[in-house]
């Protein structure tokens, strides 16, 4: 049992007083910045990086990692409580988490989010320890055609799972795809839909749209309602999930973990894709999909688990191949190199204390976050007893500072205000913003990978079916389409015979 020995060795490293302390600091700072929109782990780690020069490398990495997944935990808190996505990946949590909060079930939502995250974190820590290197090599097989087919599968699933007004949902996906085009074209460098604003050259930030549509839009909507004076039910209800809640939340957590782990290993995906995918799957398998968007606990449990699993598994390509799968991971890589450690397959042998210590501390960090967060749930929930007329200016303050601080740009704040107006318009017209966000996330990656794949193949579209992984995704997409049309066919037949 070499793995056991290694893990015990790792825990030995991580349990030193110094490393525990750095882990705690990292988790605390991470939770804090996770709660605030805009300021993400990336900016924070960049700011703290110089401080780690004088800290031993293991402790430094443990602290930075703590910030990273602390932010993932913290991001869900404001999403659930006030519909303010603190972190890119927690946008999906807004949908059902916030509705749960309005029904007086904020405590349950927070607890399930924490449990789901912790479970996913535990599983993925093991995955990193057990299968890191082979999985990382598998991920390298993903080229442009594979990524395109994967995105395609995502869009097909989205189309299939669009409920309620399917036509409008699909249209909103296209709106999102178009919004995703704004900015410099990767292939030609030309600035599309920028209207002469250099500020738009990098595209519109996901957090800007999400905060605009969800946080600002929600406030306008709440203030517009002449009758409903109480936004949150005054009775807070049980803080902890009932047995029924746990029963309902368990399968989504398992599925979310698996999904997040898979997508997390691929360097070309973002955590928001994992959360979207998990949400869509939960909605599809649910017995009563209509509950989604109205406070379904599965809609919190699945995406939260997926988010954390994705975040954790992003360490695999970074530690074993030296490939940073996200901006934050690039910074961590930088931190390693500042300490003279070259990430890659050798890191496990050259620096076992670092590798196993970091892995052990991931789990300790996750445990710390649950311990930190559970007692805080009562405090967070009591925040909702603040009268709404005082709460909403505070939400505005956090939104504004968060957005401004991302690029230190006023322009971003103006855009967020615009999206607040758009958000309320969409709401009145019955157009859901969630499919729009999905299109926004997938669109640029789809276009980029499609064009790149065709450029490399000299315009030959057969690359998508001659490469096995790509083919697999396309087959799955077709299967999903078939499964979707089947019930419709069945239903019609039922009508005829009945």
């Amino acid at each position, binding site marked *: 049992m070499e793995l056991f020995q290694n893990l015990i060795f790792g825990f030995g490293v991580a349990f030193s007083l110094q490393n525990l302390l750095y882990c705690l600091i990292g988790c605390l700072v991470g939770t*804090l*910045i996770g709660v605030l929109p805009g*300021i993400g782990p990336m900016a924070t780690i960049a*700011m703290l990086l110089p401080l780690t020069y004088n800290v031993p490398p293991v402790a430094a990495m443990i602290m930075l990692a703590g910030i990273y997944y602390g932010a993932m935990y913290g991001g869900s808190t404001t999403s659930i409580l006030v519909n303010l996505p603190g972190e890119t990946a927690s946008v999906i949590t807004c949908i059902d988490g916030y509705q749960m909060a309005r029904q007086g079930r904020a405590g349950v939502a927070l607890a399930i989010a924490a449990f789901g995250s912790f479970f996913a974190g535990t599983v993925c820590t093991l995955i990193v320890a057990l299968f890191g290197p082979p999985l990382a090599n598998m991920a390298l097989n993903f080229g442009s055609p594979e990524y395109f087919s994967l995105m395609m599968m995502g869009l097909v699933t989205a189309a299939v799972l669009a409920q309620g007004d399917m*036509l*409008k949902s*699909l*249209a909103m996906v*296209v*709106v999102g*795809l*178009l919004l995703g*085009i704004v900015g410099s*074209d990767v*292939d*030609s460098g*030309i600035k*599309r*839909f920028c209207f002469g604003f250099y500020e738009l050259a990098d595209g519109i930030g996901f957090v800007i749209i999400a905060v605009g549509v969800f946080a*600002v839009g929600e*406030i*306008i*909507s709440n*203030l*517009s*309602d*002449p009758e409903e*004076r109480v936004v949150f039910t005054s009775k807070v209800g049980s803080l902890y999930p009932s047995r029924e809640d746990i029963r309902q939340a368990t399968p989504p957590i398992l599925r979310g973990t698996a999904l997040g782990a898979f997508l997390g290993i691929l360097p070309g995906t973002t955590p928001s894709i994992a959360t979207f995918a998990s949400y869509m799957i939960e909605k599809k398998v649910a017995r009563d999909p209509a509950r989604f968007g109205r406070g379904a606990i599965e809609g919190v449990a699945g995406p939260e688990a997926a988010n954390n699993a994705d975040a954790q598994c992003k360490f695999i390509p970074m530690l074993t191949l030296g490939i940073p799968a996200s901006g934050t991971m690039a910074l961590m890589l930088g931190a390693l190199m500042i300490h003279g450690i070259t990430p890659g397959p050798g890191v496990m042998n050259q620096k076992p204390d670092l590798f196993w210590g970091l892995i052990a501390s991931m789990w300790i960090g996750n445990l710390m976050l649950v311990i930190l967060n559970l007692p805080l749930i009562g405090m967070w929930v009591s925040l909702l007893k603040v009268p709404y*007329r*005082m709460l*909403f*200016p*505070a939400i*505005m*303050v956090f*939104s*504004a*500072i968060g957005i401004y*601080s991302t690029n*230190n740009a*006023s*322009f971003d*704040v103006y855009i*967020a*205000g*615009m999206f*607040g*107006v758009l958000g*309320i*318009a969409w709401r*009145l*017209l*019955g*157009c859901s913003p969630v499919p729009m966000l999905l299109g926004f996330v997938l669109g640029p990656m789809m*276009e980029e990978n499609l*064009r790149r794949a*065709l450029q490399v193949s*000299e*315009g030959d*579209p057969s690359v998508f079916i001659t490469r096995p992984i790509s083919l697999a995704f396309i087959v799955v997409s077709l299967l999903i389409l078939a499964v979707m049309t089947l019930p419709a066919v069945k239903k019609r037949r039922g009508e005829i015979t009945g």
Partner: protein
Amino acid sequence: MKRELRSNKDFWAGMMLIAIGLGAMIIAREYRFGSTLRMGPGFFPVILGAILVLFGLAVVAVGLRSGEKIQGHLSLRALILLPVSLALFGALMELAGFVPALAALVFVSAAAGREFKFVEVLLLMVLLTVASIALFIWGLGLPYPLIKGI
């Protein structure tokens, strides 16, 4: 058969989609379209715009048939004041610094509410400003001048 179009929900939703789609197509005409072999920067936006126009037409058709009305209320005051408060925040961050920007943001956004109690808002403004300074400027070390020029 004349239906009230002014409050027809799907009619307006479709119109919005058509407007976005057409807008995208018109602007994207300036970008090279390319071919399926070597797509130019205009390829995706033009195709997507066209699809969106089709969707929009379909939604309009649905709207004309069902005649569903727009539901829910809209407070013009909130609709105008909240974006304005954000705009003020952005402008004052550049012109005057962190404290005036926050003060304006809290004040104007609070004015968008149903009740406006002067003393309460003043207290809230002070509280939020102090808390933000402690959290963002001292805690996270963001490099914003509290009041410009001082």
